């Protein structure tokens, strides 16, 4: 403490930096998510990183095609849209769905690892077409089920099926 007095400029400078940073962060936090260049850039960067990660997770390219993955491919289904549709139709009220924060229901089975299951609700084979049909009208296939007909459109059902098949295909 006997040293020469530090120039207060350092102090004021750092304080000013903190102020500026807080102001920028505050302004950014106010931006509407759909009109937010920084957020969009971050999201895009995240998506690219996701791509790299999944590419890395696939491991070395094998000679033979991944039949399992191909079997679970839902034509026309978009997993990202499917995830949002899950929230929209209220699936989470009854099921735990990994990746959907609000889906914590315990009425029905957890949908974790759905891709590995042999049957859907014990009545349909676990294949893309059956899953999509099941989602559109469960009571048709299982009259005693508690799962109601949610009025899911075919497109939405395909999206949701695509998302559900991302849950635990390899584990």
């Amino acid at each position, binding site marked *: *403490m006997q040293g020469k*007095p*530090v120039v*207060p400029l350092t102090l004021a400078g750092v304080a000013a930096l*903190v102020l500026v940073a*807080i102001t920028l962060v505050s302004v950014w*936090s*106010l931006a509407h998510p759909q009109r937010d260049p920084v957020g969009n850039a971050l999201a895009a960067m995240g998506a690219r990183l996701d791509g790299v990660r999944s590419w890395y997770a696939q491991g070395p390219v094998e000679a033979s095609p991944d039949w399992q993955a191909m079997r679970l491919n839902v034509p026309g289904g978009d997993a990202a849209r499917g995830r949002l549709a899950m929230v929209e139709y209220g699936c989470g009220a009854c099921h735990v769905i990994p990746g959907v924060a609000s889906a914590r229901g315990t009425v029905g089975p957890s949908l974790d690892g759905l891709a590995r299951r042999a049957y859907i609700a014990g009545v349909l084979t676990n294949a893309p077409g059956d899953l999509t049909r099941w989602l559109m009208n469960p009571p048709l296939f299982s009259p005693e089920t508690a799962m109601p007909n949610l009025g899911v459109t075919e497109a939405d059902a395909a999206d949701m099926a695509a998302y559900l098949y991302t849950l635990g295909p390899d584990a």
Partner: protein
Amino acid sequence: MIDATADRPRQGPVLEELRTYEEAWATPPGWRRLSSVSHRVVGQRFIVTGLVFFLIAGFLALLVRTQLIVPENTFLDAETYNQVFTMHGTLMMFLFAIPILEGFGVYLLPLMLGARDLVFPRLGAFGYWCYLFGGLIVLASFVFDAAPDGGWFMYTPLSTKEFTPGLSADFWLIGITFAEIASVTAAVELIAAILCTRAPGMSLTKMPIFAWYMLVTAFMITVGFPPLIVGSILLEVERLIGLPFFDPALGGDPLLWQHLFWLFGHPEVYIIFLPAAGMVATMLPTFVGKPLFGYGYAVAAVVTMGFISFGLWAHHMFATGLPTITLTLFSAASTIVTIPTGVQIFCFILTLAQKRPRLTVPMHFILGFLFIFVIGGLTGVMLAAVPFNWQAHDSYFVVAHLHYVLIGGMVFPLIGAFYYWTPHFTGRMMSERLGKWAFWLMFSGFHITFFLMHITGLRGMPRRISTYPAGIGWDRLNLLSTIGSYILAAGVVVFVWDFIAHRWRGPLAPRNPWKAGTLEWLYPPIAPGHNFHAIPRVHSREPLWDQPDLLENEAHETRGLLRDAPHGRRETVGCHPLSGEPLQIVRLPHPTWIPLLTAFAVAVSFSAVLASLYDIAAAGAVAALFGFAAWAWEPSETGQTITTNDEGTLPVDVASRLGHTHIAIIGTLMIMVALFASVLFAVMFLWNVQPEFTRLAGDPDLFWTSIAVACGLGMSLVAWLARSAPMAVLDLAVALLAGVAGWALYQAVLPTDPMATALAATLWVMAGFIGTQQFVLLYWSLFLALRKVSGQVAAGQIVPEINRVPYALVTAGMLIAAAVVLAAPQLEVLK
């Protein structure tokens, strides 16, 4: 007057020869250190325990922030989350902020004022154990899976048995009330110490500024805590036996709790802020090298702040539907507090202006304090505007505001104070480098966490929610706040690491390492365990600056009063409360286990209430009463005189209005009056707000009421007579009259049914409170009589008698006030 050589047990000439100064003041080694009552030991206990609670509460805060990092998080369930934020607030407010600041006061004040110890060391030790046991009771709720979950202000009716079954609220109410005993006892002790044991020549206007801040704080505690204690007791009684204080169906009012709580809660904020501001006012002049600018202005500001803080509680209740016409007036009143705050801030700024300061770590924290606290003050002024308050109240804006005020106003100065005074505790310096890291991490983390919360709140996020929907505008703000909280926590970790590691890594501290002007730096900071071989005379507020010889001589060769320990006893100089001139020699106790045992008995009693084991609770209370008696049984030495080296002859433990015991009684009576006023407020509030319940529960008996008043007056009269004619029979008469008065009061309220209406229930509480007062007088008088009969005291030793008079008078005054209240509903003239 008795000659000093008169035969008295336990201080014969044999002891005088045997003990040197060091022996008389030695702290017992090993586990027997627990019996120490020295202010240094007790102060350090307070500080370290407070720091532990701070870390626990800080950890809980991180859990809160982690839960909120993303929307709809499942890290904690709602129940755990509610427990975590409740305990965070509770621990921070009740078990960290006030105790640790009182700990600094307990440790530093005698050193700054030129005393060898506080005047009531055993009371300080007792207070610490109450605090520790109370804190443990609160913490134990986690073990029993019954952590309180009603928020730190425990609003009724959510906290009543109907909506919070189980023990969680009881843990809170009982633990916190117990811990508050520590706060009020420490307050009385500090008042007496500041007013009665200062170095010769230290008039009130020459006190170190920290003493002024602590004095005002202590007075505020004596008046500010009682409303909460009363509120807690009412709520606990409602929970235990169902008296309907807060039930509107029976004439109660949930808002009564809010009034009592904020009557405490608002001053509480200033009770936390003022000691920390006092630390700033002490450290700042050291680094500037000039005295505090505008000392008188600062004192005036602090005293006014103490007064103002009690008139502002309504602004916590703007949204409860207060009458519109008064909202503006309350709003104006709330802003007034800015003026004394502004005066203090400008005193600090002008102190800075006198000379280029040294930019040490404590100085960083002082600047951080100015920066943060000014923002917190300004948002506080915004909150005083009623329309804005309606938007911001109970939203994250308020969370931001209160953390700006409390962290900026208290935590930053406190950590600066740790860097400043740690050399005094340990003899080693903390690291300048780590200190700056800690500061910048805390400073930037703090702003990221809490500045954004202003926006979060105005964007509609209420406080105390464990989950929020995604996508409506709070996601990013919460994410950033959580990141900021981790940075803030990293800063705290650096500080704690430094605080621990400096014990072996820190360089040895030189004498007066910061070149301060206040007396606590007189000794080289290798803690000797005792203060002042002799108590020097001071001539200014900065004795070490104006009397360079104090630092040039070896500390143990300081010239002054009471050189060494001439009687082998612990003694210090008692002064005139105003002028600071020596008035008496105060005999201080040696290490003893009684405070610990008594506090333990009280703890058993409180815990047994919690467990509904009322016979054990009663046994604990009786054991505590024996503890207090054993504590006070020691022979009185009043009336002896001692010839000192340069101040002539001084009496021991004077019996006068200027003596320390009398000042302490005045402090205690302030607490009692504040408790009574809180009960009275409850009675009159309910009577006024729910008038239709006035006559539903039966009328008090006016005959017995007048008997009670007559006995109360008689009791005061006899107590007054007993002061000059100390005879055991008079004490017995006081005891008898006190007992009869209490019993008559019971008869007076008996016709009313406390279960029927809240008003009747509060009348019973009022009678119960006065009954307790009467019991204290009865117990006290029997104790005195017993001592006289057993020959423990001689004529002329009238200290307890002279102190009993104001106690009896105030009790009689309460009886009269109670009688008016009991009679009022029956006097047609009043309604």
